[in-house]
């Protein structure tokens, strides 16, 4: 059985990188163990909570259920990539202004998913927001503030575009 590490090359937050990975590692393990990126974190381990959200080729995936070896050749973006130059983007600002978190553990996933939602639907209804974010859990229960933050971010993005 050839279970030795393989070398993968991919783009990580805009930079070309390579890494040696065991075939059974998931994407979160790759980011944490090889690149010291801890924004995507495994929480439920089952794809339900969204704390491990990572973008692969522009699409949100569940990092803890994604084999690391399969990002070979892909473009990977994590929460660590500055959204807007060195500053915060509309979604991050809106989450701060609305107090849309307490402990912050789930926040990277919520931010990345909200960006995806607003890219797809710049002016989502509350129903669309709730459906889109149903795979992200906030155990502090900041849901009302999170929904308000998504609406606020939508308005901010509209006024600057």
């Amino acid at each position, binding site marked *: *059985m050839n*279970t030795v590490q393989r070398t993968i090359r991919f783009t990580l937050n805009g930079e070309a990188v390579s890494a040696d990975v065991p075939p059974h590692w998931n994407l979160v393990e790759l980011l944490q163990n090889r690149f010291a990126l801890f924004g995507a974190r495994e929480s439920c381990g*089952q794809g339900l909570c969204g704390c491990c959200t990572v973008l692969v080729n522009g699409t*949100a995936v569940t990092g803890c*259920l994604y084999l690391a070896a399969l990002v070979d050749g892909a473009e990977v973006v994590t929460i660590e990539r500055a959204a807007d130059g060195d500053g915060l983007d509309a979604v991050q600002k809106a989450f701060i202004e609305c107090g849309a978190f307490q402990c912050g553990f789930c926040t990277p996933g919520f931010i990345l998913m909200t960006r995806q939602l607003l890219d797809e639907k710049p002016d989502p209804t509350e129903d669309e927001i709730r459906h889109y974010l*149903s795979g992200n859990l906030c155990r502090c229960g900041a849901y009302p503030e999170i929904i308000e933050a998504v609406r606020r971010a939508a308005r901010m993005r509209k006024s600057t575009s």
Partner: protein
Amino acid sequence: MAPFELLEPRTLREAAALLASGDATVRPFAGGTAVMLMMKMGVLRPTRLVSLRAIEKRYSGIEAGAGGTLRIGAMATLSTLERSPVVRKEAPVITRTLRTLSNVRVRNVATVGGHLAHADPHMDLPPVLIALGATISTVDAKGGRTIPLEQLYSGYLETTLGRGELISEVTVPRQAPRRAAYLKCTTRSVDDWPALGVAVVLDTASENEGAVVRDARIVISAATDTPKRLGAAESALRGARVDDSVLRRAGDAAASEAAVIGDEHGSAAYKRELLRVYVVRAVRAALARNEG
């Protein structure tokens, strides 16, 4: 997770050949969301995973053929299916079902073929596609075959696929002019695994006083070990003008005929009562839709 060897064949035939050895520890891997979960839990310990992600692109496509028949490549992701304009046009019940199927990230990665072949009875698309009359095509070393989707399932997490046999394509007849609905009952939160799923597809002749059912297909999931058609409930509707007493007979027939099993989402007794109620609601929901 235990280590394994990861293979990435370039063609579906090559993948099927790699899986044909008869070694049960060599497993296919499509989107991998279910396989990763099972490996993490330790219930699946493969020595080799055969990834299907590098096979021919045509197995990821979705197109509508003659008469609006949908041809869905097994490697199409659930998100591709959800966003497909031809699916929305030819079988809108599929588009509606996907909205509450797992979550966005899982739909972005999970594939149609994997969703069907996993054979977890809590999945949403099997009852919907069976009710619509879908067939699947498979590929193996000897060639392949085409079977009605309902013949894929033989038990809890068990299918009639042979070793080295992979689903290549799903064919779904156009929904219209039939009316269709899929309802599921989740007992903890809206995005939970269902305690019961009910798919209803009705061929109706509309008249002034209401709908007369020419034909009915009712398929349930999550409450039985495999997706199951409910013949007695279908018979209660067939040829009838739908009113409260007809609906009650259909619900009662469903509750008596189904071999309901309990799980962590509800006891068998509870699910049987859900079934009595949800068959009625699903028929009403199908009739309320005017998308033929």
